[in-house]
């Protein structure tokens, strides 16, 4: 932070001075964003309400109003999606944070039960040290795909994610398939960017 102006958090700034993208123009979402400096093009750092993890947040998404921190910051639900309801493809992330889950087998089982199918989780190399990431792609139909993920660290902190990727109704199947593939990449990037905030919070 080089000058006084930049040290203001986005929620303290005049909306006119903020980037003209949904993430900053939406009042609730703005509260989650750390700064107006992007981490990579089109992405800004989101700090969870419990201050326990961060992720790269797409500028054209907004946080749902039902997102909330649980009692004493030991859990959190965070939901976000594209602000544009008419987007060709709609992604919705449903993220659940838990301060302590005894073992990952339980989490896989819970995710299977929520999904209503046996998920085939595959370990994905994580750039973040001491963090484990595994991702499963669910059976999908023509217009809808789902991606499930578990992020976990040695302190047994855990994040479970279900992401839906849904084409607009009028989009042809072929086009939808390629659009979904593109989105899967983006979703996967966001999932990989999830990082536990070990220095702060609980």
């Amino acid at each position, binding site marked *: 932070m080089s000058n006084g102006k930049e040290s203001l958090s986005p929620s303290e700034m005049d909306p006119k001075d903020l980037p003209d993208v949904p993430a900053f123009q939406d009042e609730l979402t703005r509260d989650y964003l750390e700064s107006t400096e992007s981490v990579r093009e089109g992405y800004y750092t989101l700090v969870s309400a419990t201050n326990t993890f961060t992720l790269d947040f797409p500028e054209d998404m907004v946080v*749902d109003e039902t997102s909330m921190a649980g009692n004493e910051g*030991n859990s959190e639900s965070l939901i976000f*999606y594209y602000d544009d309801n008419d987007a060709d493809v709609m992604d*919705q992330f449903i993220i659940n944070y838990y301060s302590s889950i005894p073992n990952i087998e339980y989490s896989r089982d819970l995710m299977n039960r929520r999904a209503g199918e046996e998920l085939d989780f595959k370990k994905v190399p994580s750039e973040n040290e001491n963090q484990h990431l595994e991702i499963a792609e669910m059976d999908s139909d023509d217009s809808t795909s789902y991606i499930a993920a578990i992020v976990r660290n040695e302190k047994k902190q855990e994040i479970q994610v279900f992401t839906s990727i849904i084409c607009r109704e009028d989009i042809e199947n072929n086009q939808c398939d390629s659009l979904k593939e593109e989105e899967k990449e983006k979703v996967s990037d966001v999932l990989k960017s999830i990082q536990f905030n070990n220095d702060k919070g609980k």
Partner: protein
Amino acid sequence: MAKGILDYELMAMRLTNKEYENMTADKLKSTIQQIYLEETGSLLDADIKIFHSSDTEDSLINQTGYNGTAIYIDDGNQEEMYVISQGTTNGPDWSFNAKGPLAGESIDQPQATDLFVEQAKNKLGVDEDAKVISWGHSLGHHNNAEAYLGYGTFDEVYGMNGAQVNAYQLFDMNIDFQKAVIEKFKVRNDADLRQRVSADELEVFTKEFFKDESKNIHQIISSDDPLNGLTPFVPGMVELGQIEVVDTNPDVSGIKELAKDIPPEVIKDVQDLALIYAKADNAGGTKEVAKQLFGVNMDYLKDVNSFGSFLSWYTFNQGEFDETVKALNKSVPPLLDKVRVVLDNKDLIFGRLQETGYISLKEKDTMIEELELIESHLSTIEDGLNANSSLSGVQFLQDISTVAFGGSLVWIKSSLTSSIECMKESGFFESLNKIVASHSIPELLAAMSKGNKSYFGTDMVYTATNGDPIKVNISAALRMYRETLPILEEKETKIRNFEKAVKEELDDSYKDEKRKVQDEIDRMESSPGSYRDLLAKHGHLPAFNKEMKTIKVHEVFYPLENNDFDEEIHELKKSVESGKLYIEKYRKAIEDLFDEEDNVSRLFDFSRRF
């Protein structure tokens, strides 16, 4: 409901209510045994293991506020685990229920429920195939039913006056359901669902989607339960399962009738007001209410009793005055808004309460009268506050509204308490307690009498079949019969110990001492020579030439006196015998009130076998 080991509705209700007592594992075990005996007339021959949520090492479960008990039962034929999830019990709490978790926001506790079940299965060594059945009252049912529908935590759910599940929450929890909703309504995210699909349509679809699961959800609901009355007002709230509705308070026409046509936002304001009052009242009675309601430090107003003293306080204690005005500025307008909403709908609210039998005409009149009085004083204060903010000190003093402001402030200090006392004395709040009581399990149980069996609290009451219809609390009788025997046995042991102590400490030590003396005598008599120095006083060396030839002791041992406790011990033993006799007589007296086919005698016999 497929028959499980504890699969009896009344057993579930009684144990779920008992679980609130957070008893020890042993006490809960015997409670399960006794309730099983009372409900079925036979002994529960099974291995029982208990695990309470406070025993988990997992911080997450307890920090969400989740409280529950897992009961593992194996009767040799089948293994089952019952999970009792605690709800919230007291008055203001059910209102919080409606606002917080039920508004479709937090899924903390359903998550904790699933995690607890997982841990209980591990700790108690529950077989994968064992059936897991949940019981829950109030919020406990909400947690159980959401965990069941969202995560598949249970095989069966049994709810009593339960808070219902929320379709918006289930949309985020159960991905299968989410897919179906997306497919059906062509929505693509949470906001889309809330905005484009009416809550009614979603509720109907939710019922349809969970049709099969609903067969495993059983609920018993009082038609007078206030929480149940709120269900229609919470968007997305769905009543699922096989539902048995019971009229637990026939004197009133039921909560749905009461709330009919009253706009939800008015109900919310009434609730808020009741909550504010309840909180303030809890904090320390009527006197505290004013302080709590207005956030004003009442000590400042100690000497403010008239307009004159108000002016002098205002002039000389500007700091206190400013602080008071600030507090009033914050507290009065929102409070006043709610009071006004209630008064605007006074005929509807109080009229309906009276028509449906909850309150009397006098209570209604007093409430309206006092609320109008409060409203007028609060309005004056609000006017004064508005004037104060735009006027400087001197102007404020000269302003006409100041006189009224001071007057109303004095009224708040001195008369608000009596106004609230008036409302209290009218009996209004007690009458409203009837509404809250209808949320309880005991009121449900009380409505479940069958034949000569009925309930008092969670106890079973038998009505005598021989002679006068005397009511006997059979649970209490069995408890007494069961618990007295060990007490009497303990007493017997103590008496035996006492007898032993008397013998050891007195008789034996007397004999011991006597023997020691006798030994010494024997020694002296058998070797008198070694006692020569006893003759020392009869002469001095070197001329000393006396010898000890013989010693003869003429001993007399007096018997030990005051050592006879036989009488006391006999009395003590008699008291045990008469205790036993009394208990048996008591048992006999109760048995005589009933016909043989009531099997009361068997209950007593069995009650001593666990």
